[in-house]
């Protein structure tokens, strides 16, 4: 049998029972009990077991307190006094019913290693999947970023240009009104608005004329080349 690890106290107890009383002794490897005993290199606490005068309570009398009649106390008596306590050693272990309860509790609260490893694997898989999905999303969005940045910049530029154009048009109209009326007109007044409407009408007419001219030119241009080419 492999070497037995006894604590100092038992080593001292063995030695005192055998009649040796020295704190540092080197016992031979094969002493009487045939076991390898460990030595203590300092004086350990003595174990006072009180074997000569044990108190074993009387189970039948009424005077003994209740707690001295319990199974727990019986076990402690056996632990202290051994067979001299008069307790059946078979009662130290749990009975079949108690054992069933213990096994049920253990199955519920302490799953076996395989189950635990499986749970851990599942959790880890779920975690990695979540992380990968998040990273994928981030990567996809980052790939879109240059285009989005360019779009946004273009939009901002266009808005700026529009504003500039608007301002230019307004200043032009104001100048026009100034010229026509001879004094600075408030752009909100009805006169100004009438003037604006007039200008717009004129411009529309001009555009229409331009368009007609272009169409005529195109038609004339289309008609002319075929006769020259043919």
């Amino acid at each position, binding site marked *: 049998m492999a070497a037995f*690890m006894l604590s100092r106290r038992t080593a001292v107890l063995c030695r005192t029972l055998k009649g040796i009383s020295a704190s540092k002794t080197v016992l031979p490897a094969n002493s009487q009990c045939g076991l390898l005993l460990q030595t203590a290199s300092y004086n350990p606490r003595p174990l006072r077991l009180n074997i000569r005068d044990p108190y074993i309570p009387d189970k039948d009398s009424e005077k003994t307190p209740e707690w001295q009649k319990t199974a727990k106390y019986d076990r402690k008596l056996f632990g202290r006094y051994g067979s001299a306590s008069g307790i059946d050693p078979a009662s130290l272990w749990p009975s079949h019913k108690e054992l069933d309860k213990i096994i049920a509790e253990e199955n519920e609260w302490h799953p076996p290693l395989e189950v635990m490893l499986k749970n851990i694997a599942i959790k880890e898989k779920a975690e990695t999947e979540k992380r990968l999905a998040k990273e994928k999303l981030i990567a996809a969005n980052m790939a879109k970023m240059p285009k989005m940045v360019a779009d946004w910049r273009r939009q901002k530029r266009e808005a700026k240009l529009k504003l500039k154009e608007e301002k230019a048009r307004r200043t032009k109209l104001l100048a026009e009104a100034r010229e026509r009326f001879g004094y600075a007109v408030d752009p909100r007044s009805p006169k100004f608005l009438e003037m604006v409407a007039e200008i717009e009408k004129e411009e529309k007419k001009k555009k229409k004329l331009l368009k007609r001219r272009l169409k005529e030119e195109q038609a004339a241009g289309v008609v002319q080349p075929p006769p020259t080419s043919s």
Partner: protein
Amino acid sequence: MSFPKKPGGKATDILQNLPRITLANLRPEPGSKKLEQRRGRGQHGGNRSGRGHKGERQRGNRPRLGFVGGSTPFYLAIPKYGYNEGHSCRPQYQPLSLKRLQYLIDLGRVDPTQPIDLTQLVNARGVTVQPLKRDYGVQLVDEGADIFAAKINIEVQRASEGAIAAIERNGGVVTTSFYDPISLGILIKPVPFFLRGQPIPRRMLPGEDMVPYYTNAENRGYLADPEKIQQARLALAQKYGYILPDISKDELYHMLSMRKDVRQIFFGLAPGWVVNMTEKKILKPTDEKLLKYYSS
């Protein structure tokens, strides 16, 4: 004359002729004992006895600790943050430095020729573990890794990489294993447990949060694959730059290869046995159901 000279000479004569040591012959080293300050006596200790002049100071009516005269005190002004939240549920591991371990081995308190267990460390008064204060065991710390020189088979609950490297460099073996609180209480105080008369219980497996730690070969966990542990040993030797000594050729190989079973608490004692101290007997159960339960 050819008398052989007695060793020691005059010193031994003096020692032999002096009277026995009693309290009357002893006195402390001059300068080691400083007289205590006695208040209310003499020119310097008397008058107001070091209490100051009037007010709360002299009359002993100062307000409570932390009070700052009426404004919000520091300990209430600072907002709360969950640094200590759940501190009583966190497992704690008493640190054991390699320096202390070497000290214990050198003084002969811990025997390096036997597997070193938490029981051995507590018997040698090397560490103090309090299972009721959420201590789950002992952790090995790197301090003293450069002076460590002992070949040991040690079992702790956590170990840092540097400590594992230092022990394996000297040809030793480290194992990290888990003890649930009841098993830990039994492990550190075996004799009071044996006096209780209970059968040795089975050691429980670690919880789901600790299983990855103890199944990892890098931490030399007791649930890890032995082959992976060997690979990890080689990898660590490469990382720290030492040649891994071959322990299979060692004379103490049998001792170094001793490991506890997953459900075992003590070397040489199986779960289910009752150890009786008075009669020095071990009682083993014979019922099949009990045997099946305890050996599963």
